[in-house]
């Protein structure tokens, strides 16, 4: 059962975030052959809710959708590979019922088309009964230790030397230690152990055993909120995090990524081994995916928006520039340059005028230059030994 609240917290990748009548709990109806979901129950500011919004059933369960108010339908947003739930597209009224038998394990997301905007959405989780330790041997559960190419040459940072292909199993322990800056990767640039399996709820203590390392989260299951430790810390520092959400977490040391300082933590029982503790038998992996970044188009849109906002100022100043009064622009009303008024002139000989002001200014400049020259080269540079002599 341990995994149920953990998964419920993630709101199914945001699907149920704006659903008023979803309070974070997935109603557990496993083991029943027929389950009823009300369509058009009270919620979301009117009779615009599925009740219960999130329900967990066993494979083979029929869900009866029962309309309790008018003008709703059931459209499927997402379902597991191989599932064939079509939903009920036509808009139906109070009293209508529609049922479907869910066979394929996984997460089904559905919504009511007319009331999607107010949050009329729901989820069906189909998974084998939990706590049914007896049938764990079917291997359908657990979290496989799949790291993709994380520990290989094709991932950023290259291969991880101290990863020998094994995942250290520490499931069932409440606290597990990972050394940060252990020997490996050509120095003290390794996490030890690099790959680790723990049970949900386990606290992992990261213990710095050498200097200038951090723990940056590269990838984690949807709904997990591990922030890592971005500050570069030194020997003796410890940092811990409790892992609740099942799945594979990948992390790295930013300064030493190029040396292969990477690690991974698998949270959840191993597949096949799951049944033994009655914990995760028949677990379904929560969907994972890369976090969404800011796209080029978003940047472009912001840029254009900003330019549009600023454009009135540009227009204003352009007009100001054009509208200088005739007298101040040096041009007459036809745009021709005006003649300067004639002035009285008195000619003096070439050497009759001595620009003493200019001379004294230049003398001051020279004194400043000579001062800087002597101070910079002879005092600051040569006087500041030792100096490179070869």
């Amino acid at each position: 059962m341990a995994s149920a609240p953990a998964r419920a917290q993630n709101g199914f990748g945001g699907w149920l975030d704006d659903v008023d009548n979803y309070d974070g709990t997935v109603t557990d109806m496993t083991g029943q052959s027929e389950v009823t979901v009300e369509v058009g129950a009270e919620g979301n500011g009117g009779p615009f809710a599925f009740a219960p919004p999130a329900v967990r059933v066993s494979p083979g369960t029929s869900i009866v959708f029962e309309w309790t108010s008018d003008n709703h339908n059931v459209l499927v947003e997402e379902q597991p590979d191989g599932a064939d739930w079509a939903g009920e597209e036509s808009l139906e009224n109070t009293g209508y019922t529609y049922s479907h038998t869910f066979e394929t394990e996984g997460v089904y997301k559905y919504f009511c088309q007319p009331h999607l905007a107010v949050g009329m959405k729901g989820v069906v989780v189909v998974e084998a009964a939990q706590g049914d330790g007896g049938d764990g041997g079917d291997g359908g559960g657990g979290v496989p230790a799949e790291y993709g190419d994380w520990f290989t040459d094709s991932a950023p940072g290259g291969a991880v030397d101290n990863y020998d292909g094994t995942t250290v199993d520490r499931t069932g322990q409440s606290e597990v230690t990972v050394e940060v800056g252990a020997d490996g990767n050509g120095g003290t640039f390794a996490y030890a152990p690099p790959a680790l399996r723990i049970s949900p709820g386990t606290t992992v203590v990261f213990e710095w055993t050498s200097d200038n390392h951090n723990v940056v989260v590269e990838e984690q299951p949807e709904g997990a909120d591990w922030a890592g430790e971005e500050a570069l810390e030194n020997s003796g520092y410890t940092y811990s995090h409790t892992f609740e959400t099942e799945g594979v977490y990948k992390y790295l040391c930013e300064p030493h990524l190029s040396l292969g300082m990477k690690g991974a933590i698998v949270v959840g029982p191993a597949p096949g081994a799951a049944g033994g503790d009655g914990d995760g038998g028949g677990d379904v992996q929560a969907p994972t995916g890369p976090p969404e970044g800011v796209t080029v188009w978003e940047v472009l849109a912001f840029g254009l928006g900003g330019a549009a906002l600023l454009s009135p100022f540009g227009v204003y100043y352009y007009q100001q520039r054009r509208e200088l009064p005739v007298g101040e622009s040096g041009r007459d009303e036809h745009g021709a340059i005006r003649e300067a008024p004639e002035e009285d002139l008195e000619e003096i000989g070439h050497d009759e005028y001595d620009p003493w002001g200019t001379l004294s200014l230049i003398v001051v400049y020279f004194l400043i230059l000579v001062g800087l020259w002597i101070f910079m080269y002879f005092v600051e540079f040569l006087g500041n030994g030792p100096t490179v002599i070869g």
Partner: protein
Amino acid sequence: MEIHRFEKLWLAASLVLILGFVATVVYGAVGAGVAMVNDDGGTVDPGDITASENFREPGVYEAGDGEYAVYVEARQFSFRPGSSQPIEVPADTRVTFYVTSPDVTHGFSVVGTNINTMVVPGQVARITTVFEEPGTYHIVCHEYCGAAHHNMQGQIRVVDQSQFDASATGPAAIDDPAAEVSD
């Protein structure tokens, strides 16, 4: 062309100033013996600097009669030797530093002196100097090299010639209180 006598004055003065600048630089190079860091240090394979004979075991070596060579590996984010153990060299002796980097571009700057160079991966920066007096100098990396660049620092201990022992570059020699002579 008529030139005012004041103008002649300051034209001549600026030419004298330029000659003075050139003479100063010539004096620095010839008289004071100030040298530039160039590429004479040679190159090593940045992918594996330990493949180079000199960087197999960075440290302080006697390079001849009263001359010492210091091989330093600058890497993210430490100098080896220098960071975890100070570089110990004798005073009033020609010391040549050979610095290289296996990862990114670093800097090797002895704070408060004219000793500083860029450390380019694969290129050996060679600097010869003489520390006149015993004392402690600090090394910083002054080329941004990554997230912990600000932590990349080291130390040079200059000790009296009589106390210097080329083989003792380990921590034991550092704790010697006699070496704690400040300038």
